[in-house]
């Protein structure tokens, strides 16, 4: 006769995912539960592994450009910018000022689109159904601008190494101005729906706390780090693509809980609008393509460039052996690094908080698995 039946046992192992709708993709979380309490978690990743870094070794530098869009497909333009900057650094060229300004506008627009998708799905996970419709409505406007600019909505392939391929279309500036004017009242609308809502506060306040020291230990970046009170934004810390010209603030909060991360992202959307408004009024004239040959053949060497993607620090480490194909491309994805803090954030919490914490990390599995 066994000492205890399963009725007496306190530990329950539960699989969440990979087909769970609120794991935002194909993330599998193995939860160890004691009743409603989470004793520990383990993430199983790799369901969406496509071997992007290996693909890079068999493509030329220009040919690999569309593949980076498919990593963080919600913020494809940021990915493209990081890769182009890394190869440009190796080639020792810089995009012309006009190209840089347009890059900044599109990247910030993409940040808004990414945060909107995050807000909609996160609210949906918590149980607020309405915001997702409004968020996707505004995201549609941003995607329309991408489509008009480069012909694709999601996996844009908007930037080329050395600058841009596409000149702005007629009415681009007006579209951006209209978007900025239209968007700020809508952010107020989302805040009206959520910020003071007692269910929203009850579900998010003091859930998934990650303080500043823990963030630094884990290497967590992006809004998760800023919500813990660390004023760290690569756009200010090591400006790229002309970000030093624009006046904006880094929103931070102190508690580092899920609610603070929500507030930080909402503020970031407002700051993105500010950057876009400044950039669109000062797009310089001139060429959009730098001095890059048809065949891109960087000298032997390596380059690492990191940019502030919507999810955090996105780094590209490119090694060249002097041929037309990269010897190695290593990506430092923000989501992959942020995800490892998941266990620390929900240990001791409740099962219902798991969904909130996964949502607040803003992960995209395409980038984690690559």
């Amino acid at each position: 006769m066994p000492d205890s039946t399963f009725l007496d046992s306190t530990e329950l192992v539960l699989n969440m995912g990979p087909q769970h709708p609120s794991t935002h993709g194909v993330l599998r979380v193995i939860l160890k539960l004691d009743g409603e309490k989470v004793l520990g978690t383990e993430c199983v990743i790799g369901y969406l592994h496509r071997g992007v870094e290996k693909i890079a070794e068999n493509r030329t530098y220009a040919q690999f450009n569309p593949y980076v869009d498919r990593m963080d497909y919600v913020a494809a333009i940021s990915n493209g910018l990081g890769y182009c900057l890394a190869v440009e650094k190796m080639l020792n060229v810089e995009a012309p000022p006009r190209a840089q300004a347009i890059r900044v506008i599109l990247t910030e627009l993409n940040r808004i689109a990414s945060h909107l998708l995050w807000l909609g799905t996160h609210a949906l996970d918590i149980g607020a159904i309405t915001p997702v419709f409004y968020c996707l409505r505004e995201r549609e406007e941003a995607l329309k601008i991408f489509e008009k600019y480069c012909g694709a909505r999601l996996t844009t392939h908007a930037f080329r190494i050395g600058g841009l391929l596409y000149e702005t279309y007629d009415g681009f500036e007006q579209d951006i101005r209209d978007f900025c004017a239209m968007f700020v009242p809508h952010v107020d609308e989302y805040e009206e729906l959520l910020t003071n809502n007692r269910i929203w506060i009850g579900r998010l306040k003091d859930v998934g706390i990650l303080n500043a020291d823990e963030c630094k230990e884990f290497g967590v970046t992006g809004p998760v780090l800023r919500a813990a009170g660390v004023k760290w934004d690569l756009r200010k810390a090591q400006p790229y693509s002309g970000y030093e010209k624009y006046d904006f603030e880094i929103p931070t909060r102190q508690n580092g809980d899920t609610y603070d991360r929500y507030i930080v992202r909402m503020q970031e959307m407002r700051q993105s609008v500010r950057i876009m408004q400044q950039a669109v009024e000062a797009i310089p004239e001139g060429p959009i393509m730098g001095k890059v040959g048809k065949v891109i053949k960087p000298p032997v060497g390596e380059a690492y460039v990191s940019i502030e993607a919507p999810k955090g620090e996105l780094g590209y480490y490119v090694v060249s052996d002097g041929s037309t194909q990269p010897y190695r491309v290593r990506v430092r994805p923000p989501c992959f690094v942020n995800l490892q803090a998941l266990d620390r954030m929900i240990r001791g919490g409740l099962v219902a908080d798991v969904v909130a914490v996964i949502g607040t990390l803003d992960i995209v599995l395409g980038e984690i698995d690559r």
Partner: protein
Amino acid sequence: MRGLLNKIFLVDLFQGLWVTFRNQHPKYIYTERYPEERPKVAERYRGAPRLNINPDNGETLCISCNLCALACPETLIVVTSERNEVTKRKDLTTFTYDTSRCMFCGLCEDACPVDALELTQDFEMATYTREGQIWDRQMLEEGPKPTQYKC
């Protein structure tokens, strides 16, 4: 005190309801009624590939330079040609484009020196077979012909 009153009178709830109420008006309907109402894609939309023909004489613009096949990251374009003894130029014989592997990055149309290969605004490319996704030269020149549904 104010917080208590807010709690009793459900102020946050009514605030949210007021937002949803404001958005009830029919002018805020964004749904596209797709088969009945054709979406307007942008001018630069990267959709179905097309091999352009010269409208004056009906001959293909393609000069069989093979640059598109070299530019393609997925190497899904296959161009074959034969040498014309009279004009001493290459004549296009077959042009195969595997749209099932295409990611519409647009590198092939950038590479084309004579604007023969182009990604057009057509987007209805669904087929019933895998083989139907591999487009030959005739299909590329004529473009997809989706069934038009009316109601």
